[in-house]
Structure formats: C-alpha cells, structure tokens
C-alpha cells in the first residue's frame, strides 16, 4: 500500500476526515462522556450544578424508590433479553436451515421473513396491543373459535404475563434478522464440505452439529450482541404496549423506559432529574460495554474491532 504521491499534497486528508470526525465525536462519543460527568451532579432543570460525587449512585443503589425501580428494571431487562435471545436464536436458526435449502419459493421466503423487521417497533407494539385489546377482542375471538376460552385473559394487564408478551412481539418482529444472518452464514459454507458429509451418510442433525453450527459461531455472536445492545436500550415496545411507566406495576419496565422516565419525564410522571438520569444512563452504558466484551469472549470472535 505504498503511495506514490507527493507529501505536500496531503492537505486534503484532514479536510476529507473533518466532517465525519466532528459530527461523530460531538454527537455520539462526547454525549456519552457528558452523561458520565453529569451523573456526579445534582440539582433541578437542564443543568444540575451541585457536585455530589457518587451521591446519585449511592441513592440509586440504596434508597427507596430508586433502588427498587433500578433493580426491578435490571431484572426485567435481563429476563426480556434471555427470552428474546432464546426465541430469536433457536427459531431463527431452525428457519434459516429450512430456507437455506433449495425449494420452490425459498428465495421469496427469505425476503418475506425480513418484512416485520422493517416496520417501526412503535407501530408493531400498538398493533399487537390492539390485537390483544379486550374491547375489540380479536385475539379473544380466535381463542373462542378454537375452543380455548380458558385462555382468554387480559394478557397485558397481568404482571406475570405482560413481559413475556412483549418479548414474543419483539422476537416476532426481529426474527427475520436472525434468519437473514444465519442464512448468509449457511450459504457461505463450502458446498463441497456439505456434499462430502452427505456421501459419508451424515443425517441432517449431524450436519447441523458438526458442520453448520461450528462454522456460523461468529454469526451467532453477532446476532446475540445485536439483540443484547438492542434489548438493553429497548424503549419503543414498552412505550407502545405498556406506557413509559412499564405497566402493570412496573412489571415491564426495562432499562430503556427507566432511563426515559428518570431523565426526561416530569417529577409526577416518574422523573428523577437530569443528574439521576445521567447516572442511570452511565450504569446502563457500563453494563452494555461489559456485556459486549463478554459476548465477544464467549463467541471468541475476532470482533468488529479487528475485522481486517
């Protein structure tokens, strides 16, 4: 990669980079550090000015109701993430194996499976709220028609079932992403290897276990990290299906909704002021960062940071 141009003509390099570095740094990198700094201050309004050291964090981890809300949202987020990862990875993988085989319509099926992913999470959340809505009762009517009346319940109104419903809706929407990524991984496997396995008499299960799974492990990693980062900052689905309060009784409150409420809502709607909001954002950021490193290690990925 030795360049044969003259040194003095390099003036354009900083010029070409300037816009990218400035916008990316000022609006993506710096704001996160700003939140970290702000998390050490308390006070009302947009610019808390009273330095409190770790005061906000101590409040967050030890005092009512901050502690309850924070750990509640943490627990919900972990459960939500586990449910979505399980559904999306397992079902997505099974479907990918199906559509990576050539059959009439397999190409079209691949395209269709991604369709829900293109919709807005907000609209999808509202749509499923309406389907489950007891007044209109579409879901209830289907259950009735199938003779399953005992299953008619206000699913979104029961603390135990509301969160799994949200997880199912999000998995439904983003299943196509898993299918797309896994299909790409399976397509990239050398077809000679698969042929050789078939000649050796390997069944479908053996093929999956010894050839497909090992070769798409990095992709399982990518999918898991995407779900992880997405779910730990998920907000739209909570807003659409159970308001930013995480109804009923905070059972669907996730990190995303907790952050929104604490930082940007008025006091009577669950706001804690900018300083506390910044502390919440900082903790979420730390958890997400540690989590991503953990997943990179688990899947022993080269990682995007060394993708060359």
């Amino acid at each position, binding site marked *: 990669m030795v360049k044969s141009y003259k040194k003095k003509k390099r003036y354009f390099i900083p010029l*070409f980079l300037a816009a*990218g570095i400035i*916008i990316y740094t000022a609006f993506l990198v710096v704001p*996160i550090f700003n939140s970290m700094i702000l998390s050490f201050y308390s006070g009302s309004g947009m610019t808390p000015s009273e330095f409190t050291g770790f005061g906000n964090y101590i409040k967050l981890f030890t005092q009512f109701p901050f502690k309850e809300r924070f750990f509640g949202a943490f627990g919900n987020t972990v459960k939500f993430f586990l449910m979505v990862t399980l559904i999306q990875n397992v079902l997505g993988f099974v479907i990918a194996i*199906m559509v990576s085989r050539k059959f009439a319509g397999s190409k079209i099926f691949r395209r269709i499976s991604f369709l829900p992913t293109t919709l807005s999470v907000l609209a999808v959340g509202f749509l499923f709220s309406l389907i489950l809505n007891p007044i209109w009762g579409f879901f209830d009517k289907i259950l009735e028609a199938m003779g399953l009346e005992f299953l008619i319940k206000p699913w979104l109104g029961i603390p135990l079932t509301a969160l799994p419903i949200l997880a199912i809706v999000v998995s439904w929407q983003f299943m196509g992403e898993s299918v797309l990524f896994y299909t790409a991984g399976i397509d990239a496997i050398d077809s000679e290897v698969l042929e050789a396995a078939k000649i050796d008499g390997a069944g479908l299960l053996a093929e999956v276990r010894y050839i497909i799974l090992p070769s798409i492990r990095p992709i399982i990693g990518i999918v898991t990290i995407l779900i992880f980062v997405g779910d730990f900052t998920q907000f739209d689905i909570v*807003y659409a299906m159970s308001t930013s309060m995480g109804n009923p009784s905070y059972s669907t409150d996730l990190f995303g909704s907790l952050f929104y409420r604490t930082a940007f809502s008025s006091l009577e709607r669950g706001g804690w002021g900018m300083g506390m909001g910044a502390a919440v*954002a900082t903790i979420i950021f730390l958890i997400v960062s540690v989590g991503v490193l953990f997943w990179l290690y688990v899947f022993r990925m080269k990682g995007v940071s060394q993708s060359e």
Partner: protein
Amino acid sequence: MIKIKDGLLKSLLSIILIIYAVSIFFPILLMLLTSLKGNREIFTNPYGLPHIFNLDNYIKLIKISNYLVYFKNSIIVAVTSIFLILIISSLASFVIAKYRFMGDRFLYFYFIAGLIIPIKLGTIGILKTMITLHLFDNIASLVIVNVAMGIPFGVFVLTDFIRMIPEELSNSARIDGCSEPKIFYKIIVPLIRPALAAVAIINFIPIWNDFWFPLVLIRSDNMKTIPLATALLYGQYETNFGLIFAVLSMASLPVIIFYLILSRQFIKGLAAGALKG
C-alpha cells in the same frame, strides 16, 4: 433409521415454516384490511375482507391532523440524513482506505466502535447540545443525530469496498496529472455506487422509524415526524379503531413498499455485513 428420522424432522420443520409464514402476514394484513373497514364493520366482521374497500379512515386522518406535514418532515429528515451520511462516510472511508497517516488504523476502529455504542444513552448530552445550538424543536437536530448514527455503518461498508479497488487505477490517473481529491470523485465514487446504494437503503429504515429522538428533541406539531405523530394520534383516538389502524398502516406502508421494491439489495447488503463481522 436415519432416513425415517430425517423425514420426520423435515416434515416438522416444514410445519414450523408454514406457521411462521402465516404469523408474518396475519398481523400485517389484519392491520391493512381493518383500516379499510368502517367502525361498525370492525366489530361485526372482524375476520373477513372489508365489504367495500373504502378510504374513509385515511381521508379522515388527513382532515383531522397535519398528517401531510408529518409526512413531509419524515421525508426531509430521511433524505437529508442519508445524503449527508453518504458524502461524509465516503470521504472518510476513501482517506482511511487509501492513505497511510498517523492514527489511520485507530481512526478506523474509532468509527467502527459506533456500531455497538448505544447512542440513546448519550441523549442527555445531545439534548443539551441541541439547546445550546438553538436546534431544539427543529428537525435539523434529528438530521444531525441520524448522521452521527449512520457514519459507523457507512465507514464500515465503504472502507472495505474502496480497499478492493485496485491501486493501479488511481496510479494511472496520477500519471495523467489527477489530484487526489479528483481521483476520489472521478474514479472512486463511480466504482462504489453499489456500496453507496446499500448504505443508503439500510440506513433508511432505522431513520424513518426512529421514535426516541423525535420524542425527546421535538415539541411543536409542525416539526413532528411520522413515528411521533403515530404515538400522538394513537393516544388521542385509541377507541376509534378504524382510524387507529389507518394511522398504523400509514406509518408502515412507506417502509413496506420501500422494502418490497428494494429487498434484493437490502438482503445482499446486510448479509455481506454479517459475514464480514
């Protein structure tokens, strides 16, 4: 033995596939079809096709709200953001891919890190900056945030693409007396058009659907984008089912149509990205 087991497994898998296909279409069709029904028909005929296809709900939506303004705002935000993302990331990618300078590798990783940094968590800082810049409650703030979010993916895809262009092409242009910036727009840009298209298409969907930043950064009605309007209208007309389904269909139809037209490029672009990671 193996064959029988495989056969059973395969029919089980086919059943899963069929159920999955139905589950994809059912909610989307339900939404679109219900939006064409009158309010009474929604209750008397919830499953069937509408008796008469009527657009009353859509006409009403445009009458009672500033829907055309929201639509215009969404288009302006999406088009401007994507245009800027393409220019800014291709310029940066060109330099990163083709020249060695101090910190070039670091710079690449610095940009790429943005692929997994959740920008939402910097929203407090962004809000304060926008207020300082007098861009709060202005769709320009949404454009800036979208550009910051779009740069990492743009650099990720374009840097690789530009690296694959043989250096001989640039060298022969240099011999002809081409300056480096001229090499960029005379030789590189025409060659990376497919990659530019992929970056544009893949960025369109999250930009169009973004709800979080408008919710925090926009207040005035004439600055609202479609997702924000969707939430507003849903809250206002929650019991008017026909109208609500029209609202949800209006929010979804642009992306559905966009995707159906460009799905081939879309899937190709994303799949290539997945394999590279």
